[in-house]
């Protein structure tokens, strides 16, 4: 089994949100051939007149989106996370630098994508986009939170990059609790005073599993869904550090530059604390069923439990 049959994939939430956003006539959707995968196809089916197919040409798509944004539209441009990286400089120079509000979605992020292999597994997107001024960077954990956060982009004042995942995971939120989410504010989904596990994307569910297992051993963990990597919710981390002495980050991303990098930068500058990072340890992925690959790479609930036990000894 590569993913549970219940729950939701964050890419589905993105597609559902686009459909709901269609009421605003400024919203346009841009595709680079992968609409069926990113789920922008849902918008295309209902609103072909506001959907622009650009073919397998991501660099062109990013600047077409920028031109539309400069002309009063609210463009949502999506492709696989890895292929957005091909247009990194276009995003940097053509979108973020002039402050044009384009919303980019990169689906199939991380090694969770599985059997397609390393060429499709973006593990550096969050890190590289985090370096660009004027760009909000998000990675929601399930379909409902992806839908809610994408809806909020309609009135967001900056360009954004949102990474979604291909596979379904158990939901962290329900239809009520998801309404409390806000772009830029981490979401505390479990409270405990021994350690704080700060996770994003599909690793939020793994963090919850780890926290439950740790509780059986008397270790009480706070779990944070840090769906917005930039701007990072530093206030929340500061507040947690008042009562919690050590931290673990968990992400389906390189340990260099992503959520772990962002949290470590914040801790070092504001509230130095022991930190262990669970993520892809400076290597490329490979083909494999998702569950096998997560075990092989070392980014599952067991990896998080081990990291917690290690960081507790460093207090």
């Amino acid at each position, binding site marked *: 089994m590569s993913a549970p049959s219940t729950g939701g994939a964050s890419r589905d939430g993105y597609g559902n949100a686009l459909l709901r956003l269609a009421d605003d006539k400024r919203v346009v959707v841009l595709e680079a051939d992968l609409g069926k995968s990113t789920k922008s196809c849902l918008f295309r089916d209902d609103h072909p007149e506001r959907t622009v197919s650009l073919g397998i*040409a991501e660099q062109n798509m990013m*600047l077409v989106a920028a031109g539309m944004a*400069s002309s009063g539209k609210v463009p949502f441009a999506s492709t696989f996370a890895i292929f957005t990286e091909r247009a990194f400089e276009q995003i940097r120079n053509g979108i973020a630098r002039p402050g044009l509000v384009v919303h980019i979605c990169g689906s199939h992020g991380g090694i969770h994508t599985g059997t397609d292999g390393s060429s499709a597994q973006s593990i550096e997107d969050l890190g590289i986009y985090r370096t660009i001024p004027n760009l909000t960077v998000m990675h929601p954990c399930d379909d409902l939170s992806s839908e809610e956060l994408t809806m909020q982009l309609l009135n967001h004042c900056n360009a954004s990059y949102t990474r979604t995942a291909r596979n379904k995971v158990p939901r962290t939120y329900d239809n009520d609790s998801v309404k409390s989410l806000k772009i830029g504010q981490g979401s505390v989904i479990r409270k405990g005073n021994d350690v704080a596990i700060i996770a994003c994307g599909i690793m939020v569910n793994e963090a919850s599993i780890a926290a439950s297992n740790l509780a059986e051993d008397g270790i009480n963990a706070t779990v944070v869904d840090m769906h917005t990597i930039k701007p990072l919710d530093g206030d929340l981390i500061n507040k947690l550090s008042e009562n919690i002495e050590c931290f673990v980050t968990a992400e389906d991303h390189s340990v260099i530059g992503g959520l772990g990098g962002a949290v470590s930068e914040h801790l070092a500058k504001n509230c130095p604390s022991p930190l262990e990072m669970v993520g892809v340890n400076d290597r490329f992925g490979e083909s494999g069923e998702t569950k096998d690959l997560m075990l092989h790479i070392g980014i599952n609930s067991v990896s998080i439990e081990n990291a917690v036990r290690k960081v507790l000894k460093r207090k």
Partner: protein
Amino acid sequence: MGVNIKELENTARNCRKNIVQMIHKAGAGHPGGSLSAIDLIVGLYGTDFRFDVNNPNWSDRDRFIMSKGHASPAVYSMLFELGLLDQNDIDTFRQLGSTCQGHVDMKWTDGVDFSAGSLGMGLSFGIGCALAARMDQSQRKIWVMIGDGETQEGQIWEAAMAADHHKIGNLNIIVDRNRIQNDDFMDVQMEIGNIGNKFSSFGWAVKEINGHDMHEVVSAINWASDNNTEPCAIIAHTVKGKGVSFMENNPSFHGKAPDDNELAIAMEELS
């Protein structure tokens, strides 16, 4: 509408003087590609290009997307003639805090519709502007200028393909075919061959002109403006550094400022 060719030629001459002067004062900049492009820019603004100097951000204005953003002095000299920039603006070209950034930037300068500097991106941006205009059922037209060296960027051809696929009739491109790029002549660096044929094979209507003959420039702009069924490409054959003898066809003045003596000679030749 009637166009006074003599008047446009005079404007272009004034622009050339300001191009050379502002680059000299800054001690840096790109005179060659600015001087090759200026007749085309003056010709465009001198025809039926729709804009409002009193409201440069008018949402239904035509757009001029200067993709070869290093030729910013050409754009600034035109905006100066139109009254959108003042003497202090162009005198502070490339200096800290100046309205006139090194490469044209829509965030810094009213009347600039695109933030350029990285070649190959402007045509794609123009497609976005053109599609938005079509969705809005607006009559606004989108003009993009690129350099011939810029056609070495693959994104130009991604965009050329998309403009045909979407039948974007309100989009036109002007190619400044001066045959020189940063390091050397194009036929040394990477010759593109017949650019007109290439655009034509991508489904564009194409016209080749002498980019320094104001009659031909105005006629070509009117031709492209009147064609609203397909994207149009004007391949303007130009001379890099046009108007200043020692800069003409000279790769070393792609990105070099004239010194004091060179400035004096240039101003004499342009007067």
